[in-house]
């Protein structure tokens, strides 16, 4: 079933930048789609459009099965930066989406704790963001996106600023969370390897104006494991995606 159908979407900013032009992409329910493209090709713009934070100048963004659940909280958004409220503890940061939905602190306690535990931060509920490491802050921001149990998770280069070891671990965490929750993920990244490791489908974008240049199925077993990173099939798939990427920017 198609969850999200983007067709012919264009976005022109006042000032003359055409960030997106004629972007079409279908996202299946439960899918993991990576959006890969050079800097400035409009990936963040597209993600904001999907989230409803901005509206397209042309084209449509349709939700054939209804916009996820119809309510706020059915879309989770993870920004490139952790974007935590520095004046609130980890618990309160993760509690925010529920609080905005009208939940009481005591009523939400279990859900908030569960979301924090699902990213491996149990015990840090009362810590302040400045006391957390960069990777922990990123996890906190993922927990915040997960706390409403969204059906669609939009992630904008969430691990770009992290070191490779942390990034690999968070990749695996994300995969297991997605498997458990069965949510759909649209994941923006610069990294070919990350795109191939995480996703079932890679949409390669070309720059200025941004459009989808190629879509590739990732021909790897569904269940990913760290050991796969060294295998020939993985390398071959990465090569294929790289070629598509250089084809797109040529």
């Amino acid at each position: 079933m198609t969850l999200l159908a983007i067709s012919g979407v264009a976005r022109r900013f006042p000032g003359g930048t055409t960030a997106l032009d004629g972007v079409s992409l279908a996202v299946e329910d439960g899918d993991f789609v990576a959006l890969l493209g050079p800097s400035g090709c409009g990936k963040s713009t597209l993600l904001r459009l999907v989230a409803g934070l901005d509206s397209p100048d042309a084209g449509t963004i349709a939700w054939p099965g209804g916009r996820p659940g119809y309510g706020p909280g059915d879309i989770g958004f993870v920004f490139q930066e952790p974007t935590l409220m520095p004046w609130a503890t980890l618990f309160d940061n993760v509690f925010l989406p529920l609080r905005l939905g009208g939940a009481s602190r005591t009523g939400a306690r279990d859900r908030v704790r569960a979301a924090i535990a699902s990213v491996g931060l149990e015990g840090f509920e009362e810590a302040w963001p400045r006391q957390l490491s960069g990777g922990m802050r990123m996890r906190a921001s993922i927990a915040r996106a997960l706390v409403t149990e969204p059906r669609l998770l939009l992630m904008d280069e969430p691990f770009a600023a992290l070191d490779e070891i942390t990034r690999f671990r968070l990749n695996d965490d994300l995969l297991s969370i997605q498997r458990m929750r069965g949510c759909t993920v649209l994941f923006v990244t610069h990294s070919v390897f990350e795109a191939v490791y995480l996703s079932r489908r890679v949409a390669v974008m070309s720059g200025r104006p941004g459009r989808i240049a190629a879509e590739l199925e990732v021909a790897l077993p569904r269940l990913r494991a760290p050991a796969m990173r060294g295998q020939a099939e993985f390398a071959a798939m990465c090569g294929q995606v790289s070629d598509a990427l250089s084809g797109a920017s040529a």
Partner: protein
Amino acid sequence: MRALLDRLPPLALGLAALAAWEAAVRGFQVPHYVLPGPLLIAETLWRDAGLLFGSLWVTLRITAAALCAAAVGGAGLALAMAQSRGLERALFPYAVIAQVTPVVAVAPLIIIWVDNAFAALVLCALIVAFFPVLANTMAGLKSADRNLADLFRLYDATPWQALRFLRIPTAMPYFLAGLRISGGLALVGAVVAEFVAGTGGAQTGLAYRILESGYRLQIPRLFAALLLLSAAGIAIFAALNALSNRLLRHWHESAEGPRR
């Protein structure tokens, strides 16, 4: 122990300067109506304590009232302006005019217009003190992180929720920085207003004591009053600093909190 070591250099310097001052005054036999030595000033302070501290209390009450009004009024006005661009455009120019008009120029009018002497002086000090709070809080209310603001929109936050959970916390450090500036200004405003109200007024604040001592050539008392005034300024600044550090200790870089 560390804190003590940190304080040692400025303390030593201060004591040395005082000693040099005393020595110079005695050595050159400077008459005390030109420049009294620190010991004489201290003695005067002790002798006239009742009088001077009474005056200090008067000035401090004016300052405190003006500062509280500046905090509440400045922040309140900033919040009101944050609700509507129209209101901001209508009101802000007048706030700027009030700020740039020298208080010495309007103080006589205010003192004539406002019957209650205390209220008149507070109003003068308020005019000087409220702008930093207003301008800083306004800037703070507009400084919310763009991504956080998007997050609030994503979850359909009401304007009230966005104000309560995002914009006010963001504005807090700005507000407190403004308050620290206003604390000093409120004292300056109170003193200026007392000066303008002058010797004719029924008020007996520190500025009045300074004027009076000047006329009567009681220079040691003038210095003692000046000393109290500086001490009051420092105390106000330290108190507001402590308040700011306490409120922001967990999260803002300006506060001395736990290191990351």
